[in-house]
């Protein structure tokens, strides 16, 4: 009997500790998510008092909206252009760092610097670096005898210009994650393979990569979610011409912002976020399946 009372007392304490946080999650996460789905089924203009139910019409409108299609395609382009480069460079730098003995901490910190740099400020610096006439990047190109490029002013180049900035920003983070992953691979595997005469590329291909698989999965999933939600960098790097020339840098989130908060079509904006939510969920699950093939050793 006293034991039961003690257990009950402890359970009551647990509920008391959880009361405020649970209320928070219900009110600030769960209810708004449900409300967002509700809004996506209505014609919801902040200014107008009438908010009629329109079924799936907002989704139909979006599916016929060329700008939304472009935002979706651009988002895929960011993922496909950025993540392979980020993972490859991150792994290369991590492996180089493991080859050196001195200044390892200094190099690691320098590569990590962009990750802690305020994103808005960094975006404006990059916009200035890409300046067509006065930017250092074009100065370098011209000095090498190459033609100057429009970069962010070009509908085809702008997206990759933004991608480069995002890779720069996340490279150091990626390096630190890979360093930890490499650290976890037991040295005995390398030693055993070397006794058998293996070296270089073979060790990398048959030991490093397969044993690094969990780290690769984590990195790929994490950065896909980051790239699917690009907003701050895009808005600030193509600020005057929001979404870039011919919507060349427009992302899903930036389009949601424009729909909801500049054109006040909150119903359509909410529908777009529902699409984004499904995309994030689907890609996360798919990537987990594709990348997490078991390794047998």
């Amino acid at each position, binding site marked *: 009997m006293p034991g039961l009372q003690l257990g009950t007392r*402890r*359970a009551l*304490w647990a*509920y008391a*500790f*959880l009361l405020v*946080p*649970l209320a*928070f*999650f219900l009110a*600030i*996460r769960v*209810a*708004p*998510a449900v*409300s*967002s789905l509700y*809004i996506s089924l209505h014609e919801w203009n*902040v200014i107008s008092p009438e908010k009629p139910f329109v079924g799936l019409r907002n989704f139909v409108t979006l599916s016929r909206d060329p700008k939304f299609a472009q935002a979706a395609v651009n988002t895929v382009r960011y993922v496909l252009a950025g993540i392979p480069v980020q993972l490859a460079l991150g792994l290369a*730098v991590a492996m180089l760092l493991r*080859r*050196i*003995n001195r200044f390892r*901490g200094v190099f690691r*910190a*320098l590569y*990590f*610097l*962009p990750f*802690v740099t*305020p994103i*808005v*400020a*960094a975006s404006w*610096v990059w916009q*200035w670096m890409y*300046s067509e006439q*006065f930017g*250092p990047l074009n100065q370098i190109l011209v000095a090498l005898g190459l033609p100057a490029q429009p970069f962010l002013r070009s509908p085809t180049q702008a997206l990759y210009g933004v991608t480069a900035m995002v890779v*720069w920003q996340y*490279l150091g983070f990626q390096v*630190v*994650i890979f360093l*930890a992953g490499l650290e976890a691979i037991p040295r005995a595997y*390398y*030693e055993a393979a*070397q006794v058998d*005469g293996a*070296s270089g590329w073979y060790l990398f291909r048959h030991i490093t990569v397969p044993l690094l698989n969990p780290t690769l999965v984590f990195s790929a999933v994490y950065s896909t979610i980051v790239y699917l*939600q690009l*907003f701050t960098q895009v*808005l600030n790097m193509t*600020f005057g011409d929001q979404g870039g020339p011919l919507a060349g840098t427009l992302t899903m989130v930036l389009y949601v*912002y424009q729909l*909801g908060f500049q054109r006040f079509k*909150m119903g359509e904006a909410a529908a777009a*976020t529902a699409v*984004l*939510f499904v995309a*994030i969920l689907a890609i996360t699950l798919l990537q987990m399946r594709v990348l997490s093939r078991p390794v047998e050793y």
Partner: protein
Amino acid sequence: MALEARLAPRAAPAVLGRPRRRDPGAWLAYIALAAGTVAVAFPFYWMIVTALKSPIDLFDLRLVPSHPTLGNFTEVLTRTQFPRWFGNSLVVALITTLSVAFFDSLVGYTLAKLRFPGRGLIFVMILATLMIPTEMLVIPWYIMSSAFGWINTYWGIMFPGLISAFGIFLIRQFMSGVPDELLDAGRIDGVSEFGLYWRIALPQIKPAMAALCIFTFLGNWNAFLWPLIVIQTAHMRTLPVGIALFSGEAGSAWHLIMASSALAVLPVLAVFAVLQRQIIEGVTLTGLRG
């Protein structure tokens, strides 16, 4: 076989990160890393150089300003509400970090160390909220804030971030590692249930708490989408919103834009220089657990 036996020990240290003194591979690694560092650091250099240029020198393409001046910084600090924006960001980021640190550790402790009906369900529910992207919530948050009069207030900027589901997940992992014997000993000594969390469990997970605080602070210091939506007057702007809108209005006054960027970046870099090791190790700590 004899050849392999001689080659193997020489190849081994290179792979294992312990090059011998005259290992040419290590020298190549230094050169490659240094080249990469130049590329990574260049934007910072370009920012500072431009911020030091007088307006006349702005389009002079030399890499070192011929007449360096601090005038751009004073101009940004006096002509804009930059100090106010800095203060706003500090208030918002500090209060949010304190709130996250308290509630996340309390919930993490409760879920890891106390037994009660519904524990598993509550944990799964909190984890499931991680799947909801912020973008999906900003429209309802905006409608909610309009209805309650939270638009353009500190509370309006802060409320979405006051508790973090990821932080709870993280802290729960670390709290699981706190030995039950320690808590039972406390119970025998008559420590209250809150005291068990606050005085016994919490001090056990200091590195995880430090990492959580640093990344919560950085995240809120950088937050942009929601503050951009909820802030409506210049004096309520946080630093990122202030810099973005100021830079948008400044046109081609790049010396001022870079000065404002530098004023936002340099304090963060100063903090990073001091806490560098904790921050980077925090990534490993949180990233691998998560």
